[in-house]
């Protein structure tokens, strides 16, 4: 591999963003009409009347739409994107409420006006009458099913799913030791700094729709909008502008606003824009993480797990448009680097009258990791063994790769780990944090009246989920290389890493490569950005596309230079005979030669016209099996996911009086295969760790018993500031290449967040000697645990 792969290249995205020249959704369409929504103030109610008369006098009002105004396709429930055989009672929302609301924040009326202030004026004057219904809030209420969220869903149960590998009941019955644990994780949310937003323009004369949306999947939105508006795909362009963070919530599509705004633009013949505000983002987008788990584990005297049974309950909120991805991921990724003798997992996915639940960075893995790692620590405590020793004894060994866990993963394919070296990771993390040297530190601290504790947590993360991504590379006659891939970017630095790969493959300077993502005009086939898949999927695809373009360039150059393509190389954008820099012609010239023209519009074109001379007069200018131009298009579709892994260790201090929890050290060892850009990977880890810390110590969605989200603002929802994150995140890498893609890489985007709750629970438990079974843990929670433990 040549020079750019693995280099700490500065991001090409940064220049426009730090100058304030980025173009996020609300920066576009300055003259568009503004949409605002009347949203339900109640968690569960029947709508008995909607009186819009008060709003009609608002100056600047353009239109008011309720469910009754929607055409047939838009009046159907929104799609259930990912069906599953176990999802027997899937329910999705209407674009605008049809007679009933099931969570605070559900959209009921859309108002369009000259600007957002006026649209909100009108929305405030719309009078909706409700007949309140009992609200089902929290997993206890959902499981009790005293009241139902949806009348036709018994037990509030959207799905029940079971997977088993081996005879778990028999293995546990035969085990010398058995433990049972109840473990819980509360709700948090992606919470990007930019909320959702959509802008649409209908071009009546051309009968075409252009949609800009802050999404993680432009092709998904395009297909959904076309279906809902009865348009052909070729009539719809969806463009993803700069996106101010996603973390999962923007993979959901179509949001009600994503179909309503384009439809309104079509109806009104004017551009319409919706920009979500912060409160709306809390109550009208999506959350994640709320789950209760009951673990029964049988193990031997050495701590080896003989049988593991996990029963859990997943709070899916009011609707399940994204199917069962989160609980399926928990149920499969829970196993981490371990190989229990037998494993059975069963979950219920339950409705509640709260905001819907869809993947948030980690997507079910943090909960699974929490369950597995708490179980490991509990076994170690019961047996009086070192916590790392118990883990080591349960590890899958490098020689056992590829390792089949005997389950079906979230992509519907077998859960087979492709590669990894867990014992090596453990050695690294123990060295990094100083595991063996901690006991004297703890004693010394105790002598000063201080409480410190150490913990660690391990995880395996399925990344680079299929089915496919594609890439297109074209060399312009200027020598500039234009690259497109269909999936979208939300700040991960995709333009940089994809440019690194293409520049390497083609042999051109990085500055000559320009990458576009998430624009259906440039690339129409794509899946989206989730499951840490961009580097693996689009990275592989653009590499293969660049390889094709290079082959073509070498063939065209070889013909012109009358040498064999095998004798040529491309260095710094110059095609030359190997080792002979004087022989070269520029890639731009090769692009000129590849495209025979009739018209000369500039000097380069003049050289390519049919009167420019040269060529075999007995052959057509473009051979029957050839095409003009230096281009490559390729797709990458792996047989299954590739599995990254890692381990975190933390040292915390808890205040004996106030129960304040301080992270003294936070260490990460991470294996995502070969690193394209270590600086970007480390940035992803930093951000993930901060979200993990947030989820472990600060963030929770505080619903009251009536279903009101009482902390729906940045004042009350405690997202970490700089003061809450570890002072330094110490990172070490292991590089175990994946055999499943041409680059040997694995995904890195989500890893940082996965073990956060698990590792901090372990460290706090070590400091306090009180079992920690539920996260997040605030100082008040810890104070209460101490009081009960007394």
């Amino acid at each position: 591999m040549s020079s750019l792969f693995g280099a700490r290249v500065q991001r090409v995205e940064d220049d426009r963003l730090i100058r304030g020249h980025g173009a996020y959704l609300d920066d576009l369409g300055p003259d568009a009409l503004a949409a605002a929504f009347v949203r339900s103030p109640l968690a569960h109610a029947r709508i008995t009347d909607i009186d819009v008369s008060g709003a009609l006098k608002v100056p600047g009002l353009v239109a008011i739409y309720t469910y009754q105004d929607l055409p047939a396709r838009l009046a159907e429930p929104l799609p259930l994107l990912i069906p599953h055989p176990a999802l027997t009672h899937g329910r999705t929302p209407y674009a605008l409420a049809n007679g009933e609301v099931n969570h605070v924040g559900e959209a009921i009326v859309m108002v369009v006006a000259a600007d957002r202030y006026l649209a909100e004026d009108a929305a405030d004057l719309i009078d909706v009458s409700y007949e309140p219904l009992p609200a089902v809030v929290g997993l206890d209420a959902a499981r009790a099913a005293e009241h139902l969220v949806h009348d036709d869903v018994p037990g509030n149960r959207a799905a029940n799913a079971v997977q088993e590998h081996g005879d778990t009941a028999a293995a546990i019955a035969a085990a010398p030791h058995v433990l049972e644990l109840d473990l819980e994780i509360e709700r948090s949310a992606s919470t990007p700094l930019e909320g959702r937003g959509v802008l649409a323009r209908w071009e009546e004369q051309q009968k075409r729709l252009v949609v800009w949306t802050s999404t993680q999947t432009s092709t998904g939105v395009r297909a959904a909008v076309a279906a809902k508006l009865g348009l052909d795909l070729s009539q719809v362009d969806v463009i993803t502008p700069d996106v101010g963070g996603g973390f999962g919530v923007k993979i959901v599509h179509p949001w009600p606003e994503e179909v309503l705004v384009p439809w309104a633009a079509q109806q009104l013949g004017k551009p319409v824009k919706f920009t979500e505000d912060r409160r709306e983002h809390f109550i009208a987008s999506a959350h994640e993480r709320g789950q209760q788990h009951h673990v029964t584990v049988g193990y031997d005297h050495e701590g080896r797990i003989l049988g593991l049974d996990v029963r859990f309950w997943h709070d899916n909120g009011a609707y399940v448009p994204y199917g069962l991805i989160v609980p399926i991921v928990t149920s499969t990724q829970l196993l981490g680097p371990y190989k229990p003798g037998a494993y059975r997992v069963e979950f219920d996915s339950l409705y509640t009258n709260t905001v819907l639940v869809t993947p948030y960075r980690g997507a079910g893995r943090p909960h699974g990791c929490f369950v597995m790692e708490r179980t490991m620590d509990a076994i170690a405590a019961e047996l009086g063994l070192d916590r790392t020793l118990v883990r080591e004894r349960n590890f899958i060994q490098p020689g056992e790769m590829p390792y089949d866990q005997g389950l079906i993963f979230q992509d519907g394919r077998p859960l087979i780990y492709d590669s990894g070296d867990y014992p090596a990771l453990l050695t690294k993390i123990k060295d990094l944090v100083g595991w063996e040297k901690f006991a004297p530190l703890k004693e010394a601290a105790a002598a000063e009246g201080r409480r410190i504790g150490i913990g660690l947590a391990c995880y395996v993360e399925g990344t680079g989920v299929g089915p496919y991504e594609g890439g297109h590379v074209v060399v312009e006659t200027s020598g500039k290389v234009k690259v497109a891939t269909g999936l979208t970017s939300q700040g991960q630095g995709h333009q940089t890493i994809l440019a690194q790969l293409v520049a390497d493959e083609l042999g051109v300077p990085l500055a000559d490569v320009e990458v576009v993502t998430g624009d259906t005009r440039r690339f129409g086939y794509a899946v989206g950005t989730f499951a840490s898949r961009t580097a693996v999927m689009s990275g592989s695809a653009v590499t293969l596309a660049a390889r094709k373009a290079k082959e073509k360039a070498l063939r065209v150059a070889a013909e012109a230079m009358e040498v064999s393509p095998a004798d040529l190389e491309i260095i710094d954008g110059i095609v030359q005979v190997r080792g002979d820099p004087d022989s070269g012609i520029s890639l731009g010239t090769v692009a000129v030669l590849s495209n025979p023209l009739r018209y000369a519009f500039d000097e380069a074109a003049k050289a390519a016209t049919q009167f420019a001379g040269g060529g075999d007069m007995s052959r057509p200018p473009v051979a029957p099996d050839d095409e003009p131009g230096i281009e490559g298009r390729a797709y990458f579709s792996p047989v299954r996911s590739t599995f990254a892994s890692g381990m975190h260790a933390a040292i915390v201090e808890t205040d004996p009086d106030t129960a304040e929890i301080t992270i003294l050290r936070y260490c990460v060892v991470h294996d995502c295969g070969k690193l394209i850009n270590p600086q970007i990977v480390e940035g992803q880890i930093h951000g993930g760790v901060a979200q993990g810390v947030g989820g472990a110590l600060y963030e929770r969605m505080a619903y009251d018993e009536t279903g009101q989200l009482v902390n729906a603002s940045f004042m009350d929802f405690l997202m970490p500031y700089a003061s809450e994150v570890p002072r330094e995140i110490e990172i070490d890498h292991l590089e175990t290449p994946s055999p499943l893609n041409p680059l040997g890489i694995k995904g890195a985007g989500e890893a940082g967040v996965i073990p956060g709750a698990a590792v901090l629970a372990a460290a706090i438990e070590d400091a306090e000697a009180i079992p920690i079974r539920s996260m997040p843990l605030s100082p008040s929670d810890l104070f209460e645990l101490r009081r009960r433990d007394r």
Partner: protein
Amino acid sequence: MSSAAGELHSGEQHGEELHEVRLTVNGSARTARVPARRLLSDCIRHDLRLTGTHVGCEHGVCGACTILLDGRPVRSCLLLAVSADGADITTVEGLAAPDGTLSPVQQAFTECHGLQCGFCTPGFLTTITAGLQAVPDPDDEQAREMIGGNLCRCTGYQNILASVHRAAEIIRERAASNGSGTGQPAAATPAGPA
């Protein structure tokens, strides 16, 4: 569906009285005619069409909309445009020198990977620009304090803190190579009372 149309009178729009607001923005005199309730953040973004200033929460907590108003970092979502009449404002678009040279803070963010999605970044850049004027050589604690009121969901703040230190260093480097001055480009030097 129902509809109505707003009428445009001189001095008012959609039934709202308009007020003239005169501002100096990034060194240029600008005028906007806005309703009394228009937020300064919306005025900057939508009336002056300087969309580099971002709005992340509209309640003054996230800091993405931070601008320099008469040299001081303020949250433009917590001010009405009319209340800023006569003010001198620097937004993220005004941080680089007129010739395009990045300001020390901008330069540091690029070098240290101090941004990912970039949405919160303008607020950090303006906040740190002012912060380094007050505390030119911050230690770790002071750097943390400097950015302690701004939210970022992407970076975990590690590289933003590194950027604060690097920016301080760049200011010193530039001052040394210029032989004098702060190393800050003119447009980024907040005017007004110290």
